[in-house]
């Protein structure tokens, strides 16, 4: 199962890059011209996201560097330990929706410290693999079209993150047993 999917991932883009221009050509499209026409918007789209990304990443950076994140971890850890949630992975859980790079850094550190095949190592791997950087995605996607009123998007995104977290802890306990 893994082999098939992994091959699929490896081949997907090369196959797309082979077939799309070829089929377009057969359908009578001016392939080079069309490509350039489409690519034209790339610069503007990326630049448009800058103010939105700066706003969000500055806030996240301050929140983390000030020690506020550690404070939240300190308050929550004792409670969470009781429900089978190891305090070591809490910084990761809080950081995950905020910053992909930082949460990956935390996950790497945990795997390095506790070993990839420890309970905590497997749990944090599952958490990292199954969730996404909600705030970054929202900021980037909405920012690219100039939307600043997100309505309830953050709530549905965060409740999905929370569910993923609970499900990760549950399935890790089921499959890998507590350490």
């Amino acid at each position: 199962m893994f082999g098939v999917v992994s091959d699929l991932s490896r081949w997907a883009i090369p196959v797309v890059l082979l077939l799309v221009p070829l089929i377009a050509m057969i359908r009578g499209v001016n392939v080079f011209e069309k490509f350039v026409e489409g690519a034209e918007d790339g610069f503007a789209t990326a630049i448009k996201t800058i103010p939105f990304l700066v706003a969000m990443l500055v806030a996240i950076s301050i929140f983390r560097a000030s020690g506020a994140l550690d404070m939240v971890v300190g308050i929550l850890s004792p409670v969470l330990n009781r429900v089978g949630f190891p305090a070591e992975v809490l910084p990761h859980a809080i950081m995950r929706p905020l910053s992909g790079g930082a949460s990956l850094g935390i996950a790497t550190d945990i795997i390095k410290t506790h070993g990839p095949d420890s309970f905590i190592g497997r749990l944090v791997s599952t958490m990292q693999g199954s969730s996404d950087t909600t705030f970054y995605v929202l900021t980037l996607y909405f920012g690219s079209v100039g939307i600043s009123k997100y309505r309830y998007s953050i709530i549905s995104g965060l409740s999905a993150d929370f569910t993923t977290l609970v499900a990760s802890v549950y399935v890790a306990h089921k499959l890998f047993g507590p350490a």
Partner: protein
Amino acid sequence: MVNYIWLGMMVIGVLVAAVNGHVEVVTKAALEGAQVAVKTAIDLIAIITFWLGIMKLAEAAGLVRVLSRLVQPITRFLFPSVPKDHPAMGAIVMNLSANILGLGNASTPMGLIAMQELQKLNRGDPKEATDAMCTFLALNTSCITLIPTTIIGIRLIYGSADPTEIVGTTIFATAAGMTVAVFMDRLMRYLYYRGR
């Protein structure tokens, strides 16, 4: 909502730094955050430009339409407000497929195209997200990844006996998240319109 979260992070951050007696880290952190943001956007230019070109070809060749027809039963349910055969549907489908395959750098540009197409369908305030956008982002942030390549790589580096053993647990957790994302999106939409 985003206003409060943003303000909260800024205010709490500065206050905590002040109380801890190292208020100067705030200045450094703010600048670093801004730099990361601009660097991210600049890095994005390359892949976005490239994939926008490929997407245009796929659209001109009629491939996007074929793909979006294939998954129409699902997308009709998830995005009732997007017309059949609209380019937004094609881009959404491409974005989610790339996500599922773990092709992170291809999924972002396609997601941005999807947002642009959805914005064209926005009949209300151009600064306010539409129903379809909210659904799309809920799906996107919780989307199933079959192979979480990055974390498997890290497990491999640190000598795991079985780096891929977390694939099953990941799919389980992400499926749970995705179910809740769709459910919460519908529930919140209902509450949103009722509260107006």
